[in-house]
C-alpha cells in the first residue's frame, strides 16, 4: 500500500508539473504581448519587460513561474479588472462556486442513492423502470438543458425562484442552479447504486443477516448499502469533470459570480493570465481529488489494498 501511495503521489506531482510546463509554453506562444499598445516606445516596453521579468532566460522564468504558481501567486489580470491580483479575484469567487457545487453533489448523491435503492429493491417493476429512465436521462442530457428548462418554467413562468443569482439571497437563488447541476451526479449515482445494490442483495451475507431476523431499513442500510457504497467512490472522477464543465455554463446561465463565469469572461475577453491561473487551479483540484479517490479506495476496500501490494 505504501509503495502504491508513493507511486500515485509522484505521478500526480509530475502531471501537475507537466500541466504547468504546458501552460508556460502556451503563455509564450500566445499571440501578441500584454504590452501591445502602439503608443509605447521601445524603452518603455523594455522597462515593462524588466518589471515583469520577461527579459530573463526562459528556464529562469519557468522556475519562477512554477514557484509562483504553487504559492498561489498567479500574477495580475490584464483586461477583466486591470492590475488586480488574480488570487484576489479568485478568492472572492471560489466560495460561491464551491457552495453551489457542493449543494449539487449533496442533492444528487442523496436522491441518487434513494432512486438506486428503490430500483434495486423493486427490480424489474414499474419503479425500477422509472428510476432507470431518470438515470439515463440525467446521464445523457447536458446540465444546461435542464438549467434552461428549469429557469424557463420555475423561474420565468411560475416565478417560484429567481432566474438570476443574487448575493443578497444566496439560498433561494442557488436552488435552480444546484438542481440543474446535480442531475448528472444524481443519475450516475442512481445507476451505480442500482447495480451494486442488486449484487449485494443477492449475496450470502445478506441472506444470513435476514435469517438472523434483521429486517427493514436496518437490513437495507446497515448491511446492504454499506457494502454497496464502496464501489460508488469510483463514480467520483467523471462527476468532478462534469461539475467543472457544468459549472461554467450554469454560472453563465444564472449569472452566478463564481469561478466558472470568471473563466468564461476571461476566455471571451482574452485575459490569458486569468485563463491560465484558472486552468492551473482546475487541474490541481482535479488531480488532488483523483489522488484522494484512488488512495481512499485502496484504503477502504481490502481486496484492492491486498492486490496492489503484490
Amino acid at each position, binding site marked *: 500500500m505504501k509503495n502504491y501511495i508513493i507511486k500515485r503521489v509522484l*505521478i*500526480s506531482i*509530475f*502531471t*501537475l508539473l*507537466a*500541466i504547468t510546463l*504546458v*501552460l508556460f509554453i*502556451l503563455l509564450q*506562444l*500566445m*499571440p501578441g504581448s500584454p504590452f501591445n499598445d502602439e503608443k509605447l516606445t521601445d524603452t518603455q516596453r523594455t522597462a515593462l519587460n524588466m518589471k515583469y521579468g520577461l527579459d530573463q532566460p526562459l528556464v529562469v522564468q519557468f522556475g519562477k513561474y512554477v514557484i509562483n504558481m504553487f504559492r498561489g501567486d498567479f500574477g495580475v489580470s490584464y483586461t477583466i479588472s486591470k492590475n488586480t491580483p488574480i488570487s484576489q479575484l479568485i478568492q472572492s469567487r471560489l466560495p460561491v462556486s464551491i457552495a453551489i457545487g457542493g449543494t449539487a453533489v449533496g442533492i444528487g448523491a442523496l436522491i441518487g442513492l434513494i432512486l438506486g435503492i428503490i430500483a434495486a429493491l423493486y427490480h424489474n417493476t414499474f419503479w425500477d423502470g422509472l428510476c*432507470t429512465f431518470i*438515470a*439515463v*436521462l440525467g*446521464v*445523457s*442530457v*447536458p446540465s*444546461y*438543458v435542464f438549467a*434552461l*428548462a428549469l429557469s*424557463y418554467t420555475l423561474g*420565468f413562468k411560475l416565478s417560484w425562484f429567481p*432566474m438570476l443569482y443574487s448575493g443578497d439571497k444566496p439560498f433561494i437563488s442557488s436552488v435552480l442552479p444546484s438542481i440543474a447541476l446535480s442531475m448528472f451526479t444524481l443519475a450516475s449515482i442512481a*445507476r451505480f447504486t*442500482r*447495480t451494486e445494490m*442488486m*449484487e449485494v442483495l443477492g449475496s450470502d451475507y445478506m441472506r444470513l443477516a435476514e435469517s438472523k431476523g434483521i429486517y427493514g431499513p436496518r437490513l437495507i442500510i446497515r448491511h446492504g448499502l454499506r457494502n454497496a457504497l464502496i464501489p460508488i467512490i469510483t463514480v467520483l472522477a467523471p462527476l468532478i*469533470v462534469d461539475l*467543472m*464543465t457544468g459549472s*461554467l*455554463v450554469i454560472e*453563465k*446561465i444564472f449569472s452566478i459570480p463564481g469561478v466558472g463565469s470568471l*473563466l*468564461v469572461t476571461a*476566455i*471571451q475577453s*482574452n485575459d*490569458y493570465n486569468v*485563463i*491560465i491561473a484558472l*486552468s492551473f487551479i*482546475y*487541474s490541481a483540484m*482535479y*488531480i488532488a481529488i*483523483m489522488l484522494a479517490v484512488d488512495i481512499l479506495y485502496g484504503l477502504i476496500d481490502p481486496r484492492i489494498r491486498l492486490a496492489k501490494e503484490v
Partner: protein
Amino acid sequence: MEKNKLASASAAHDEPATFLPDDFLLKNDDELLRIDSNFSTQNYWMNIAKRFWANKGAVVSLFLIFMISFFAIIGPGMNAFSYSDQNLTQKNFAPRIAGLEQLGIFNGDEVLRTTTGVKMVNGYKTAGLDKVYYWFGSDTLGRDVWTRVWEGTRVSLGIAFAAALIDMFIGMSYGLISGYYGGKVDSVMQRFAEIVNGIPRLVIVTLLLLILKPGFVTIVIALMITEWIGMSRIARAEMLKLKEQEYVLASRTLGARSFRIIFREILPNIIGQIITQLMFSIPTAIFTEAFLSFVGLGIPVPMCSLGSLISESFSSFTTHPYQIVPPLLVLAALMLCFNILADGLRETFDPKLKEM
C-alpha cells in the same frame, strides 16, 4: 426402492394402490432422436442483429438518429431560406405552418409579456405577409430557425463523427500496441496516457482553442486530443485478454508479423467493443462542441451548430422561447439516443455483462 416407497406411502393412507392402464404412457425417444438434428449455421452478425432487434429502446434510438440525420441532410434545402441570409424586417416571427394555422396552433401568434401587461403579437399580420411561412419561426436577425436548426445539426453531427472516428483510430492503435507489446513499452505508454488523463479536458480544450482559431477543424483537434484515452483503455484491456489465445500463437508460428497479428487477427475479434465505445464517444463530442459554443469558443458566425444556436437564442429565451426549443430538443434527443444506442450495443455484443 421406488416400489417400497410407494408401498409405504399407500400403507400410510390405508389405501391399496391400484393402477389403471391409463396411468402410464410409453416413454418415447423423441428427445434422444432430436440430438442429431441439423441446425443451420448461425452467422455471427445475424446473431448480433437478432439480439439488437430484441432491444426495443436501442432500435427506437437508432431510428430516431436516422430521422435526425435525414433531416440534417435534406432539412436546410426544404424551404427557400438559407441559414445565413438575414432579413431584418422579418425578425422574431413566431412559428407558422401552412395547414396547421387554421387549427389555431402554429399560426404566428406570440404572447409577449411587457411591463404594461400581456400582449398578443402576430408578426406576419403586422407586416402583411400572407405567403411567408417560418416553420420554426425566425430569429433575432430574421433568419429561418428551421433551416438553421438542421444546418446546425449537420455541423454538430459532422464534428461528432469526425472526432469520434479519429479518436477511434488513435485510441484503438494506441491501446492495441500498448497491450500487445507489454513490458516497458506498455508501462511507458500507460504512464503517458495517465498524465494526459490527469489533465482535465476542460483545460486542454480551452487552452487549445486559445492558440488556434475557433472553427470546425479546431474543435475536432481538441476532441481528438482528449477523447482517445477511453478507447485506448478498452482496446488494451481486450488485447490483454486475447493475446495469449491459441489462434494468436498459431498465427505467430506461421510467421505472421506483429502488425498482422494486431490488426488482422485480434482487431476483428474486438470490433464489437470498439463500435460500442465509438457510439459512447459521439454524444461526448456533441456535448463538448455545444459546451464550447456556449462558452464562446465554438463555430464562428455565420456558420452555426446546435451549441451556437442555443447560446445565441439564450439571450432572448424568455421572450421568444420558440427560438431555443428546437435546437435544445434536437441536442437532447441526439445525446439521449446515442447513449441508449451505445448501451444497447454493449449488451448486444456482450450479453454476459451486468445490467446497466
